């Protein structure tokens, strides 16, 4: 009866075909090679244009010549003579600044009196170009490493403070109430609830702070250092030696990339719970 309507005609065997695929696409994915590829393409283009003389070597240096400067720096060991003091200044200065900033930022976040006193002060210090204060630092800390550490530390300090107390402010209050309701000590609440809760914001603040630290590193070295990337760039600039200038600037870029990479690793390590 009704079933007969569904019966196939028996004279012809049905043909079987796979269902055609029409999905896929429209889903953004990480393309790790695009960034480096674009960079290499730009450098190659520049190389081509400068080699042909379309761009004169007075306008932009030829990438292969910059590379030759690098190779020379590497071979003579001059690279390390400049890089190591710079790295030391960066590490010491940024660590001092960031640690002090995290302590002060947490205090601002926790105590209303500290907040009322220090937030306007930090807001007043933030927009001062720290380079302008270098003479002051030289008077206070001497012409040597002290003034450079101080400059980098202060430059790292202000953005990290702002990020830290912002992070503390954003910690879920119900978590703090929970800690209190279970009778956790004040120290436990700060160490186990407030700090981990503020950590994501602190780390993203550090990304900015460390970039600023690199900028200030060069500024500090331009004003009185025999060795250092900044001194190297300054010397090259004074001689209008564009190849060496670009070699120095490239080192700074690479330094920035490394710092950013390290913070990314740190985030993945410390914020795996997200």
């Amino acid at each position, binding site marked *: 009866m009704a079933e007969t309507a569904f019966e196939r005609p028996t004279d012809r065997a049905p043909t079987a075909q796979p269902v055609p695929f029409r999905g896929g696409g429209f889903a953004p994915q990480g393309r790790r090679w695009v960034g480096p590829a674009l960079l290499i393409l730009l450098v190659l283009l520049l190389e081509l244009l400068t080699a042909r003389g379309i761009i004169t070597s007075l306008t932009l240096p030829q990438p292969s010549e910059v590379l030759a400067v690098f190779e020379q720096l590497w071979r003579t060991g001059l690279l390390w003579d400049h890089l190591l003091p710079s790295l030391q200044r960066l590490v010491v200065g940024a660590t001092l600044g960031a640690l002090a900033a995290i302590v002060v930022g947490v205090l601002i976040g926790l105590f209303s009196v500290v907040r009322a006193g220090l937030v306007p002060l930090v807001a007043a210090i933030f927009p001062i170009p720290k380079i302008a204060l270098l003479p002051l630092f030289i008077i206070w800390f001497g012409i040597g490493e002290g003034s450079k550490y101080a400059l980098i530390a202060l430059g790292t300090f202000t953005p990290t403070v702002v990020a830290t107390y912002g992070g503390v402010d954003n910690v879920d209050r119900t978590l703090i*109430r929970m800690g*209190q*309701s*279970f009778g956790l*000590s004040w120290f436990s609440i700060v160490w*186990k609830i407030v700090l981990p809760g503020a950590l994501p914001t602190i780390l993203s603040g550090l990304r900015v702070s460390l970039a600023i630290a690199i900028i200030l590193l060069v500024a500090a070295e331009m004003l009185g250092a025999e060795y250092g990337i900044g001194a190297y760039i300054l010397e090259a600039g004074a001689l209008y030696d564009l190849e060496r200038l670009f070699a120095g600037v490239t080192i700074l870029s690479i330094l920035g990339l490394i710092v950013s990479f390290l913070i990314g690793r740190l985030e993945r390590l410390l914020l795996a719970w*997200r």
Partner: protein
Amino acid sequence: MELEISHVSHAYGPLAVLDDISLEVPDGRIVCVIGPSGCGKSTLLRLLGGLERPDAGEIRQIGAPPAGCLNPLTFIFQHFALLPWRSVAGNVGLVLEDHRLSRAERREIVDDVLARTRLSDFARAYPRQLSGGMRQRVAIARALAVSPAVLLMDEPLSALDSQTRELLLEDLIGLWTRAPFTAVYVTHNLAEAVRLGHRVVVMSRRPGRIREIIEIDRPLSARAVADPAIEAYQRRLWTLLRDEAADADQELIDG
């Protein structure tokens, strides 16, 4: 341990939220507090747990907490309040870390409460990996870990879907039947109140006053989902609350 609330009033600035509340929480019983939204029932709970101070009146603990009790007044929160950066076992362990316990003792307590809440297989999972119901179970395990004298539950099932809610309700009934605990259970869900409460306190809208206290003497384990006697209680509660809820609904929040 019992709790006694006598003539408690509380206000947030000019806004009176609780007005002359007197109530007893007897040992080994669950007291449910229901009322329209904004009637101050959560405030009452925070006052009970010592997270806020009443403007007037007094809240007393009567009798000593049982031996081995680490935190007499223990909360279970509506939104679980789990630390996302700690595993299930870490979240439970957190509340033991400030007490003088050896590593082995701590481990033993954590294992025990996770087993009681059927979470042993999830000890290493992080909150984000768990469903809402599982997260609230972790919070219940954490509360049990400190062997509380009184559990203060602030709408513990309100953030869950209705099926999960039923499952956790059965869990709570099971936990109480096996080892009776004292609890104050704040909710706006009448069905929860009549299933769990030995005593149901009906509050008026803001400023919260006690309108009526209903005793339900049927044992918790005997209260089934469609039990007519229990449904009669629920209907009675609804007639008490209906007008209050309607009025509360019409109020301006900052009024």
